[in-house]
């Protein structure tokens, strides 16, 4: 076990640079004719949502990888991606609410995509909760991989059901959560810069999270190998010499 845990700088540099570019473009891009400056929330909300979906897709692939290879690295990747996906989903939902309140006067609408995103949020919260209730690494990896696959495979069915449901009950308004299509080139660049920045954040967080999981597992193995007394050593012969006549 290394005496010093490596803490490379490149992720921070990459995040700093890409975030700086994204924020600059978001600030200098023109405001929307309808939404005004509120449109700038989109440059964070939309990338967060896209990366969340990507993160969950990575969880699916890595869960399959674990079940086939039984290599715990796949499990660490799946878990890390799910954690980041949950944070990004939460962020996307909250930012969407902040955008919706002044725009439509409501915190929430039952749009198909929003509803599906909320459902996915619950599915992966459940995934993380399941991991928390299982201590043993192999058992945890097995269970999480199964839920990761079952959850992801059921998601298209959930998607269909929600979309059909909203198609039948589409309200008269044609408002959509991401508002009018982006037509200005600067806005498009700002959005792409946001996607790039979030991708860099995702990769950096993944690297750190996977490393942390690996270190945790190394610690677990080291604790096992350590010369700790077996559980039975805590039981000794009772000592009845001291006067306890009432026993």
């Amino acid at each position, binding site marked *: 076990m290394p005496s010093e845990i490596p803490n490379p700088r490149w992720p921070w540099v990459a995040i700093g640079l890409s975030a700086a570019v994204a924020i600059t473009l978001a600030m200098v891009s023109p405001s929307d004719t309808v939404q005004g400056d509120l449109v700038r929330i989109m440059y964070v909300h939309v990338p967060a949502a896209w990366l969340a979906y990507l993160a969950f897709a990575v969880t699916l692939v890595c869960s399959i990888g674990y079940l086939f290879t039984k290599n715990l690295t796949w499990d660490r990747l799946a878990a890390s991606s799910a954690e980041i996906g949950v944070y990004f989903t939460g962020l996307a939902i909250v930012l969407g609410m902040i955008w919706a309140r002044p725009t439509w006067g409501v915190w929430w609408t039952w749009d198909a995509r929003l509803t599906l995103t909320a459902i996915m949020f619950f599915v992966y919260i459940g995934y993380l909760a399941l991991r928390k209730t299982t*201590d043993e690494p192999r058992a945890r990896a097995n269970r999480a991989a199964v839920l990761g696959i079952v959850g992801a495979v059921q998601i298209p069915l959930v998607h269909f059901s929600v979309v059909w449901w909203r198609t039948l009950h589409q309200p008269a308004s044609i408002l959509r959560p991401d508002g009018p299509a982006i037509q200005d080139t600067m806005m498009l660049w700002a959005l792409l810069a946001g996607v790039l920045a979030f991708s860099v954040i995702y990769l950096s967080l993944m690297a750190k999270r996977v490393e942390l999981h690996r270190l945790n597992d190394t610690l677990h193995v080291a604790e*096992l190998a350590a010369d*700790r*007394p*077996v*559980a*039975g050593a805590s*039981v000794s*012969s009772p000592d009845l010499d001291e006067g306890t006549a009432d026993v």
Partner: protein
Amino acid sequence: MPAATVIELSDIGVTAGTTPILRGIDLEVVGGEIVGLFGANGAGKTTLLRLIATLIRPAAGTGIVLGADLSGDDRYDIRNRIGMIGHVPGLYPELTLGENLRFAASVAGVPADAVETSLEAVGLLGAIDRQAGASSHGMQRRAEFARELMIERDLLLLDEPHSALDKDAVELVNGLVGKIAANGGAAILVSHDRDRVVAIADRSVELAGGSLR
């Protein structure tokens, strides 16, 4: 012809989370052997039995039971050749003794008429319709022995086999263990009742400090 090896454990370790329960366990049991396993409370006897029964995986070392690797997938294939009676009954309390055994017979692929035969052999035919939860601990143990009589096992693992049993039932247990050994199988008896087990066992081993002596 030398008897086949039924159990071969080499440097086995078992943990619960990060707490070691067993460490450096070496054990060899051949067909026809009856082995007594003794040890203080909390020494890990039940854990060792469950490991041999393929119900838990070793964290270290190698183990072969009835030809199957304890760390591999082939351990599922030998499970129905291993009988285990723990000190906690594995019967469903809501079901009658007969229903419990009929469930076991169906799952194990044993003909249904074996249920009454084996209950009679253990002296419980009169209680076939009594709910397991309403039966005494001793009756439940007898019913579990009836289950093991019904199914052909090559390895029998008994945790406190003589506890809660009257003299007749003790004879029964000894008879069952002897029958399996005579057929080339093996049995391990965990017990605090040293005298009774030593009387029928071929040898004894002591579990202390997580290791076998």
